[in-house]
């Protein structure tokens, strides 16, 4: 007699595996509304403060969506790399999320234009180096890397590699939905190792190029890892939240059990610590070394409103969720896991805001600046979710013929 009853496998075309009608109806409003809100946000930012502020707000929102998408890509790669069985029921959500890097890639166009026009990155502004006392010889070396052409090429490489990986894994997973071939899983596993290496390379350098180069004279080799920690943390939160909401909407009610929420909760807890660890390590090394060219980044962020925000991050990005998600009893309540996931997704934006916006050079830009930043985020996020619904409407939201689905359905924490 079985004590933990494994969930019965449903036929592949069961309506529980389709995106609920109520959800897919939202596609168009989200896409259109999101675009409008995003444009309004950017325009407010540009008008109320200046173009650079507006573009920074746009970049913050874009980086936020990108971290969710590539965090999901990493999740999928890691599941294959470790041959994970538990995660099969939620993996498709991550697969859908990672494909969003394709539409997001298009949204990078304004960033590349800004790099040519000198409206976002300090290094692309004419005469910036002279104005900031950077010796010409040093600046010449910097410029060899931070030139608009080379920057564009690198951006295309990152986006290309991510999109390629995402599409390849997505297509194979979709194909398995129809055919149930086990060789597909084997192939995806075999390629996950090199894929992770490529992924790590792109993530680190993209963080250097798109975010760290906002302060062109500053450098931190672990900056890429810092953004990655937020990325992988929020990707897990997206999975927990999306599963919870989909179940509320009536899809995959039986398949995603308390055990899966428990595991996602554990990983969220772990990555909260990982974020704190990396954020602190980066800070401490620079603080202890106390070299002006390294400390100025933190100097800017420890004055005025940014200093408050830094403390807020310490307490609310690490301390509070660390204590909050520590207990097993919290992790075994899906609604609590979903609540904490939402919380992390909000504080993740504060983190990116704190990283990116100070470089725009205008404090928080007062109420209009804040409104612009939030509108940009809401708009971009709505567009991404709209795109996600558009993509998910035609396909199943669970990898129904994955050879490890049974293992996932029967999964139980000790």
């Amino acid at each position: 007699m079985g004590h933990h009853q494994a969930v019965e496998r449903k036929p592949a075309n069961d309506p529980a595996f389709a995106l609920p009608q109520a959800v897919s109806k939202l596609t168009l409003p989200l896409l259109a509304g999101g675009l409008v809100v995003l444009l309004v946000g950017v325009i407010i930012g540009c008008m109320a403060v200046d173009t650079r502020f507006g573009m920074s707000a746009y970049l913050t929102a874009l980086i936020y969506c990108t971290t969710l998408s590539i965090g999901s890509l990493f999740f999928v790669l890691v599941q294959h790399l470790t041959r994970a069985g538990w995660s099969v029921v939620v993996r498709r959500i991550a697969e859908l999320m990672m494909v969003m890097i394709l539409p997001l890639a298009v949204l990078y166009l304004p960033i590349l234009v800004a790099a040519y026009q000198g409206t976002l990155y300090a290094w692309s502004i004419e005469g910036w180096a002279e104005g900031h006392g950077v010796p010409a010889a040093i600046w010449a070396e910097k410029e060899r890397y931070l030139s608009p052409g080379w920057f564009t090429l690198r951006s295309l490489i990152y986006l290309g590699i991510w999109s390629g990986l995402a599409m390849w894994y997505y297509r194979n997973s979709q194909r398995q939905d129809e055919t149930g071939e086990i060789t597909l899983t084997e192939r995806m596993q075999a390629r996950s190792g090199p894929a992770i290496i490529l992924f790590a390379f792109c993530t680190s350098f993209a963080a250097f190029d798109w975010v760290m180069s906002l302060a062109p004279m500053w450098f931190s080799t672990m900056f890429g890892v810092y953004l990655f920690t937020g990325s992988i943390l929020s990707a897990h939160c997206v999975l927990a939240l999306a599963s919870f909401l989909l179940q509320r909407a009536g899809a995959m009610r039986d398949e995603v059990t308390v055990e899966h929420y428990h595991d996602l909760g554990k990983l969220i807890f772990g990555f909260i610590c990982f974020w704190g660890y990396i954020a602190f390590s980066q800070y401490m090394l620079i603080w202890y070394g106390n070299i002006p060219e390294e400390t100025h980044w933190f100097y800017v962020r420890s004055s005025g409103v940014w200093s408050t925000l830094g403390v807020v991050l310490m307490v609310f990005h690490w301390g509070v969720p660390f204590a909050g998600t520590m207990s097993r009893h919290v992790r075994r309540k899906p609604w609590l896991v979903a609540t904490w996931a939402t919380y992390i997704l909000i504080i993740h934006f504060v983190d990116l805001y704190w990283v990116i916006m100070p470089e725009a050079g205008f404090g928080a830009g007062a109420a209009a600046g804040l409104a612009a930043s939030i509108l940009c985020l809401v708009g971009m996020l709505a567009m991404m979710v709209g795109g996600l619904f558009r993509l998910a409407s035609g396909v199943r939201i669970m990898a129904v013929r994955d050879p490890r689905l049974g293992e996932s359905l029967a999964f139980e924490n000790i």
Partner: protein
Amino acid sequence: MADSQPQTITAEDGKTVHGVVGEYMDVDSLLSACERVRDAGYTKADAFTPFPVHGIDKALGIKPTVLPWIALVCGLTGTSIALLMQIGMNGDWFSSWIKNFSYEYIISGKPYVSLPAFIPVTFELTILLASFGTFFGMWALNGLPKFSNPMFTSPRFDRATDDTFFLFLPANDEKFDESGAKVLLGELGAEHVEPVVDDDTSLTIPKPLLVGLAATIALSFIPALVVARMRVTKSTSPRFHIFPDMDFSPAKDAQQTTTLFADGRAMRPLVPGTVVRGYPGIEGLDVDYEFQTGVDMEALAAIDASRVERLVALVDEGETEAEEVDGVGDGDVASEAPSDSDEAAPVDEAEAAPPEDNTPWLTSNPLLLDEATLRRGQEQFHIYCAVCHGMNGRGNGLVNQRAQKILASTWTPPSNMHDPTLHQDKYADGKLFSTISNGIRRMPGYAAQIKARDRWAIVGYVRALQASQSASINDIPEEQRDSIAEEQEAVKKAIADAEAEAAKKAAESE
């Protein structure tokens, strides 16, 4: 299963029965048996399986472990210990009541209590204690270490690591009754039921083990004995250096040579463009030449413009002015220099007063002469001046005493600071500063050793010293005169007492 009556074995006489164990061949029958046993009221039943079985703790009615709480408490203890230890050992606020405990090290220019530096240690200690708490807590909760368990007496139990599932009802369970337990396990589908009896194997330690233990202990003495022998014997072979770079430090002392640099100098000259703290002559910096020379530059420019240029140049190069003063033939020094080197005749400074010194010395100390400055001056005077001039400035320091004792022929006795010719009205502050900086007669210049600010502080202290020996009661603020008079009385009385005592002793000894 249901048809065959399960076998039962009774305990042999004289052996304690620890409980009854039943064997099951698959997980499901074990789990259902566990549930039935739990429902029958057993609270201490235990199961042994070849692999972890989901839900067995629930089936046995085992409560969730308290181990997480132990780990949490231990972890928080680690956090507190680490923070208290670091703040206590390094913090200055702590030292007011536990002075000898705080090191007060300034590390890397950070405050005594700087949290970021403490976080790694705090993190490590938290993890360490939480791990210890978890590991040893698990041991304690499981009653470990336990070298033998009565379960092992039956050879059948070996299959618990292979293909058989065991359900054990211990005798210390309130519900336990041997025959009842056997019947219950049999009813629940056990393939085999037997009592768990005392382990009857010998309690003596096997001889080979004892021999091995003794041999290990004996052998472990050898290294210590070898070291002990080496400490009392002599050897002709060179000493063995475990850390040669610590025994022979590659660090260089002042004035040594090195092969590391082309010019062979171990003391490295300043890198062009660097600024040394307290180093006066840096091009482009605002240098206070009067502060560095003790000369009123404007007044000097009116008399001798070329000397101003030389002085400025010397300060800019960071050189001491000794050469300058010597070379230019500045009144006193020039006239005395030859007599010093040729003659051994001890010339007192007062006697050798310069015929004419027209240098416009600064007449007042540029420093604010507060208590801190005077204390600094006193400290510096004690370090650099007192060895010759004496703590009281009377010119009878230890070096002078020694020179007189050995009748050193080349010795020039140091000046007595209390000589009226050295008082401020005759010997301006600037001149005194210049003397300290550049030396006079046999006295070397101290500009290279004492910072300009400290030289001025010494000047201030010397003036205080002079005042202390030539002041009248009228120089003292009125409100303090009474206490001074009292002190004087006390001192006089003490001297009188001491004299009386000495006289008495002398009288006694006669």
